[in-house]
């Protein structure tokens, strides 16, 4: 492990205040909040277009994204080998997240955090479901994290 990781984490209140100020600045400059999921949707669109352009361009959800162009980065590597439980769970969690975020029209940052900052009802509906499901499911997986 490198030195950076051995440093202590910031207290949650300080880090949260910093994150809140970054969010505030983003709203003041752009009029919207921050989101992380857009990049993954763009990448999924781009990969689908590479693999099966006819299907991707006919798809009702992907089509508007294709008109916006392709993601700049191509850093996703496919060299994933391993059967460790941790990786299978990471993949499964990723699939749920990849399905859930476009359904909810945003992710933890884009809808939960950014929507929360403008006190959108939508954000609090999302956050309540997010924490409720997480609490419920962690009861089944918690021993994997000991």
């Amino acid at each position: 492990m490198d030195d950076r990781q051995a440093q202590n984490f910031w207290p949650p209140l300080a880090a949260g205040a910093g994150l809140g100020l970054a969010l505030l600045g983003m709203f003041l400059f752009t009029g919207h909040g921050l989101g992380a999921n857009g990049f993954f949707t763009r990448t999924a669109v781009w990969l689908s277009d590479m693999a099966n352009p006819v299907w991707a361009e006919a798809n009702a959800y992907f089509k508007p994204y294709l008109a916006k162009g392709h993601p700049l980065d191509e850093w996703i590597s496919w060299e994933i080998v391993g059967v460790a439980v941790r990786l299978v769970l990471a993949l499964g969690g990723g699939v749920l997240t990849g399905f859930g975020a476009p359904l909810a029209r945003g992710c933890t940052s884009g809808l939960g955090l950014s929507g929360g900052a403008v006190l959108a009802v939508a954000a609090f509906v999302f956050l309540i479901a997010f924490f409720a499901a997480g609490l419920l499911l962690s009861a089944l997986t918690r021993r994997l994290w000991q």
Partner: protein
Amino acid sequence: MNFPLENSGMLAVLVAGFFFGYFLDVSGLGSPRKLTAQFTLRDWSVFKVMFTAIVVAAAGLWLFDVIGWLRFDALKIQTTFFWAMTIGGALLGAGMAIGGYCPGTSVVGLFTGRVDALVFMLGMLIGTTLFAANFKALQGIYMAAQGPKGQTLAALTGLPTWLILLSLAGLAGLAFAGFRLGAWFENRDGGAISAKELSE
């Protein structure tokens, strides 16, 4: 002053993105063990960081609005689609409980050298493609129970402007009670996971 500046240029996004990633990283939320420990109630960092960020940003926006420097109606405020957001939120909660990440923290995890973050991202690409493939069949759920356009908690409750301040103070009070409860759970289970413990 006339905020927002409607400047969605590369620089604004890059600077905000930098601070976003930086504060997630220094709070330890790039670690799947800290994220999943929230849901076992051992480590309340996710709740504390998110709630503090929401209250700070909301209070700042409110302040700018009161001074008259902000056109609040020019901000992006999401419209509620109750079932899509309930099911989607639950899927992200389940995804984080199982996979250890959300979209934003998986990026932080990857850049601090975690392979499982990359696998999580691969899963997200599969999930999003599955969503798109079934987009027509999902239309019913996707559009169900649509709320008023850009509805805020203030609009929902019908509170006048001066009461918005009180509701913010109430949120802060709730957060404080949440922190106290969180600290009690943390101490019961051996305290928050420190960086030192993760590097051992």
